């Protein structure tokens, strides 16, 4: 009997992989989940597929099944720190006509700098038609069939169309963007700023202070993103503001709870670092802090969170300095994207392509 042709393959064994599989099974034809053991699975602490059950129509492979991986659309749903490892194994099996979309939220450290997950995938394979999924997407809600929204981003229209055809439908709205860089950065940076807002909450500050931090956070994200080629307006969308708003509104979101927990305490609660999202946020914060410093881009909120990840103690004075600073300092924190094309030093430092 000829093997079934898979229309969509999902690579991963966590909650995100399970949720996407459940979503796709309702919409598409043949869906496969490829869930091989991953090298850096230790410390994630989660049960396979996060304890979620997959629909019976979804085929699960525990090794790198070549037929499954030959699907026209492959979704990589692993934490960002596992993207390099899994793509080193899967990359040689892929072809140039395939579409690969990732759902990772974080930046991947590389040789003193950092890469976005799509850049890692491009490096480890011949695939160029790449995209990313981001946005306030909660696995539990999706599996239950509750309304959700996602953004699919790619410079290739056909990638976005294929992703929409595979995942959009029913209660899930799938928005599209051509700004892959911006969506990836928004997804990676949002949790860092959610930590900052959590810190403010943990120190007893109210909604006004948190809103001030949120507003400045968006400015920092957009400014940094613009130096890397992202469009500033992307950060006002689902993967920027939408995601960040959700992360600071939902009391159960890990980055926010981490911020609350560390507020006012000395050192860092090491048990938090086993959480995938905190690990990703920490790695992203460190990488972006170094890159921003090299470019002379001021990111005071991100820097404060990175220092907390390193063991510094968040204080009321620091929160007030970040949320309530005068206009002069705030203006310095914002990069005017209109000036970025001209290498004028002094007032408008810029670092080319934002990699440090």
């Amino acid at each position, binding site marked *: 009997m000829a093997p079934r042709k898979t229309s969509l393959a999902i690579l991963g064994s966590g909650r995100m992989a399970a949720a996407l599989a459940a979503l796709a099974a309702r919409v598409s034809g043949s869906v496969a989940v490829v869930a091989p053991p991953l090298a850096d699975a230790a410390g994630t602490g989660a049960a396979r597929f996060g304890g979620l059950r997959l629909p019976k129509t979804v085929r699960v492979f525990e090794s790198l099944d070549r037929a499954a991986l030959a699907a026209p659309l492959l979704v990589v749903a692993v934490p960002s720190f596992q993207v390099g490892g899994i793509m080193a194994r899967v990359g040689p099996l892929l072809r140039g*006509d395939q579409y690969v979309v990732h759902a990772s939220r974080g930046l991947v450290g590389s040789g003193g700098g950092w890469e976005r997950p799509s850049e890692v995938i491009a490096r480890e394979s011949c695939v160029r038609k790449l995209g990313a999924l981001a946005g306030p997407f909660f696995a539990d809600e999706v599996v239950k069939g509750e309304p959700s929204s996602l953004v699919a981003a790619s410079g*290739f229209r056909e990638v976005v169309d294929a992703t929409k055809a595979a995942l959009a439908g029913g209660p899930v709205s799938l928005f599209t963007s051509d700004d892959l860089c911006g969506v990836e950065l928004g997804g990676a940076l949002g949790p860092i700023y959610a930590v900052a807002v959590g810190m403010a909450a943990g120190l007893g500050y109210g909604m006004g202070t948190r809103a001030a931090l949120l507003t400045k956070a968006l400015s920092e994200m957009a400014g940094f993103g613009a130096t890397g080629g992202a469009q500033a307006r992307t950060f006002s969308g689902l993967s920027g503001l939408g995601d960040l708003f959700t992360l600071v509104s939902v009391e159960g979101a890990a980055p926010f709870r981490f911020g609350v927990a560390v507020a006012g305490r000395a050192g860092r609660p090491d048990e938090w670092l086993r959480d995938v999202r905190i690990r990703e946020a920490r790695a992203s914060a460190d990488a972006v802090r170094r890159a921003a410093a090299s470019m002379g881009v001021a990111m005071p909120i991100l820097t404060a969170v990175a220092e907390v990840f390193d063991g510094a103690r968040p204080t009321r004075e620091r929160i007030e300095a970040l949320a309530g600073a005068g206009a002069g300092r705030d203006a310095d924190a914002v990069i005017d994207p209109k000036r970025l094309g001209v290498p004028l030093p002094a007032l408008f430092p810029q670092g080319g392509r934002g990699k*440090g």
Partner: protein
Amino acid sequence: MRPEDQRRVLIEVVSRVKERQLAVAARSAEAYLDHLIHETIFYEDERVRTDVHSVKRADDKAWLAALRRRFSHAGELEKKRLLADIIERHAAEILGHFSDPVYRFTTSVIPSGLGVMLNAFSPLKLASDFPRLPDVSGNIVIGGRVEELRKLEKLGTVVLTPTHSSNLDSPVMGYAVFRMGLPPVTYGAGLNLFQHRFLGYFMQRLGAYKVDRLKKHSLYKDVLKEYATVTLENGYHNLFFPGGTRSRSGAVEQKLKLGLLGAGIQAYYNNLRGKKPNPKIFIVPCTINYQLVLEAASLIDDHLKEAGKSRYIIVDDEFSRPSRIYAFLRNLVTLEERVHLIIGRALDPFGNDVDEEGVSRDAHGRPIDIERYFLRGGEPVHDADRNAEFTRLLGARVVDAFMADTLVFSTNVLAWTVFERLRAESSDRDFYRFLRSAAYEITLPMTEVYRDVDRTLGLVRRLASEGRLRASDAVAHADAETIVAKALRLFGCYHTRPVLERHGDRLFPTDMNLLYFYRNRLWGYGLERMKSEATVGAA
């Protein structure tokens, strides 16, 4: 374009553009043809009004008036005729010509003739070389992946994409192509260059096709891109400067014009569909590197005024003054300086590396079946949006190659060092005020200059060892004092005002704009960060 190919290429270009535009019009719910012709009239009207230097101004005005008259009464059939007329007019203007006799003359006589003329100022050199005639070709050094290029030229069609600093780049590339034993290339050159008294004669006959950067309407750009595509499909190697114009700031190009660069992927697709032998297209980034730039003063002036960036075409600069060209070339010869052309690693139209066998490879050296990039549902599909995105990826790789293959000279090292030192010492936060005042306010002790240059050399050599740029022989090996002496000699020999001057034991900045220009060649490498990290480390 050889005479025997001209008519066929012209017909092909006109037919394709016409068919494409009519197909879009047929699919469009709105009055697409009206929009297209309106846009042409609008932008051409603006251009004709403002381009007072154009030799074709009267003819263009008459043509535009006739177009406007015809359009005002046009029915659908007449609009299609108007479309065809516009396309034909643009294609005929763009079409390049090639003359074998002129090419032979240019490549054999001019380098020696120039050499004799210029070396008249150096009788000793003339005497020492006798009976061999000196020529400027000794001053053009070609390095990088030359052998690879020679092999690829036989396996497919090549698109050379050099950096662009000076109007001398075109003759340098033309001569280099000859020196490497490659067939002549076809290349787009600004329309203003065809009006140059001396150069124009050769531009008309050496394969250049005309690019009018003042024409803004989409139909013209479509014709231009199709022309480049058809020439590639016909096996004509191409050359164009993806930066579009000379770098005003002196920095390595970071933003490219992707229109013509996209001709490669379209030509490859058409070659595959037409089952042509040797269908592959290879994009070869190269860098042209000068110790001094002929038009530096005008370019940096324009950059600082931000007077239109790429929209502004400098008509009257050093290149239009024979005395400046002569002075520049004389210094090139008498100082035994070199223009360095570095041939970079070839890329395919999708931005992948290509080896010397013409095989595309991924980052791990694995071969890639690039034909699959055109497939959708197992079948090859034409998709303009897809091609545009691939071309954007290719552009990013070309920029990477430009940065890695840029050759850094003593002039750049000294300029960067001194400029950054002056900036650190200045309390002025306004950049333009700093440029105006620094020359009058700050001088530097030579001992500190040597110390700072030594630090810069360390940073640049580190970048060179990481493959992020290339260092000239002097920058790679000489000590700070030698570098400073060499750079000061060069800075004092060509520009109207010396960029920097040494008096006694102090260094005086004399022309901050030019200092900034030569400093900008090192922009984009993160040198500022490396310097501050080194300072923190030392502390």
